[in-house]
């Protein structure tokens, strides 16, 4: 590589350019995603007009409605119209709820975000602690026990975790409600009781993934020569891990966090269904069963936006954590 003096360049500008490039790439991906989502849903046999009017409708009525809804236009025009609506915040009319998709989602999105936020608040510190602890005590009994635990948590289906939790805490012990009620004006205690089981179930899966990635990232760094050097300087193992290793493991750890957090929105389908929680993922399942395409497309796009935002945030963290990339 060329040597050059990096200090001559403006470091912040270099990092900024890098981040802008990532942003541009994310936007391009989003555009392509919208194309994929639109194409797949356009392959459906039958369309919204038929769905709305039902089986008994006359072909004339269907054709009339189709024209009214603009469904008789060529696909690329419909795509452009749909995309325009998405950008303006008007993803169309929900066929089942018979109200604008925007409104349906607006009623559900805050619930999903609350659930995701609470789970993240529990899961991230826990995962970091488990991951770092098992890396620090690598190949000891503690590490093996934690490893087995996270392995089990990753491998067990959520509906099993959720059903066992219901069995234990609602049915047997009667401590917690088996469904989570969301309404205005409930007290903190009531709310926490209601959220306890969904959060626990979601945390189970995400903690395990994040902890395993954290451990792997830390252990990967532990084999580097600078770690041996730090030990030969007489530093304690905990200082070596916290001060020397962690700054270098930020990128993979943050990436794992972003992946897991994106899972909290779209992957919460089963948890939302079991606990009857009015989130956006169960809304999407309803859209699938009722084949409410405008709603389905909007939900899918929301999840993709969330994923891309989280990945972008992880990228920015990685850039800022790396002196080479932040152009020091």
């Amino acid at each position, binding site marked *: 590589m060329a040597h050059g003096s990096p200090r001559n360049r403006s470091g912040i500008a270099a990092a900024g350019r890098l981040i802008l490039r990532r942003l541009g790439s994310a936007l391009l991906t989003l555009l392509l995603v919208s194309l994929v989502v639109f194409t797949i849903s356009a392959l459906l046999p039958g369309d919204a007009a038929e769905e709305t009017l039902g089986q008994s409708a006359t072909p004339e009525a269907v054709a009339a409605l189709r024209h009214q809804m603009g469904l008789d236009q060529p696909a690329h025009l419909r795509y452009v119209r749909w995309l325009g609506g998405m950008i303006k915040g008007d993803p169309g009319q929900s066929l089942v709820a018979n109200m604008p998709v925007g409104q349906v989602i607006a009623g559900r999105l805050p619930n999903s975000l609350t659930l995701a936020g609470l789970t993240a608040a529990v899961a991230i510190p826990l995962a970091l602690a488990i991951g770092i602890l098992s890396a620090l005590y690598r190949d000891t009994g503690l590490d093996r026990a934690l490893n087995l635990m996270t392995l089990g948590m990753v491998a067990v*289906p959520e509906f*099993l975790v959720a059903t066992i939790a219901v069995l234990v805490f609602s049915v047997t012990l009667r401590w917690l409600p088996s469904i989570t009620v969301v309404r205005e004006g409930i007290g903190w205690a009531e709310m926490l009781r209601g959220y306890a089981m969904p959060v626990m179930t979601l945390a189970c899966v995400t903690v395990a993934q994040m902890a395993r990635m954290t451990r792997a990232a830390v252990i990967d760094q532990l084999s580097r020569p600078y770690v041996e050097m730090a030990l030969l300087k007489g530093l304690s193992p905990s200082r070596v891990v916290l001060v020397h290793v962690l700054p270098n493991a930020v990128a993979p750890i943050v990436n794992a966090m972003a992946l897991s957090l994106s899972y909290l929105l779209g992957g919460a389908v089963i948890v939302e269904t079991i606990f009857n929680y009015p989130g956006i993922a169960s809304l999407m399942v309803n859209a699938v069963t009722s084949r409410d395409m405008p709603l389905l497309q909007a939900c899918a796009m929301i*999840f993709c936006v969330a994923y891309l935002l989280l990945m972008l945030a992880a990228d920015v963290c990685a850039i800022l954590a790396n002196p080479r990339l932040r152009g020091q």
Partner: protein
Amino acid sequence: MTPTVPLREESMLKPASTAASRVRHWLSGLPTSGRVGLALVVLWLVLGAAGPLLAPYDVGAFVSPEVFDSMSAQHWLGSDYLGRDVLSRLLSGAQYTVGLALASALLASATGAGLALTATVCPRWVDEVISRFMDTLISIPSKVFALVLVAAFGSSLTLLLLIAAATYTPGAFRIARALAINLNQMDYVQVAYARGEGRLYIAAAEIMPNMIHPVLADFGLRFVFIVLLLSGLSFLGLGVQPPNADLGSLVRENISGLGDGALAILAPAMAIATLTIGVNLLIDALPGRGRRITGGR
């Protein structure tokens, strides 16, 4: 040829190892957790393949007067919400779960690895096109992607197989591509290019053999993800449709027995858990599996 001076190495030559001795050697290197995992995997593969033959009763037959019966000599795992034999239904369900997931994971891993090799040895623009497309697919969360596909195409067995494969191909591609791109820079591959070798030879003979182990480990992970995805879909009523039933469907249809802690719901749930934990234990114990790159499930 002229006889060479016998050097030290010749006396060290080992007799050609037989397949059996190699397997034994491999097993002896496996830690306990790995052997447990291997046993579980083999058990479920056998049950998945031979399940219906082993089933004591017909899958759909109402054989017990009691619903949610507990263990008995006639019904080892009790009866379900309609009084059918849980063991027979479990064995039949395992066939769907294991078979579908195995086929999907094979398809996903093979497609992913094939595309990755293509992207590696072909001109840059090919790589850019494939990578961009896969990056797009991977940014649709897997469950969401599967749901959209189910909504669009329905959920027959073939479609479920294809949907699960399509959902996990981008992840398999990403990992295989990272491996292949690294290997492509190795000196021995560069030597092969400089020898004038064709792309097909380089991909198949020089790169492939050196990425097979990590790709196999990744295949195991994909299998686990797909088992969980298909079970989840079935649990939501969007997966395998009645009268067929996979393990996820069994959990769903017996959900009313949850309050009583019925075997009919615990047995299939535990079946899924032992299958996925088994595969994970095995992969985890594989020697030199290198840096594991896990994707989201």
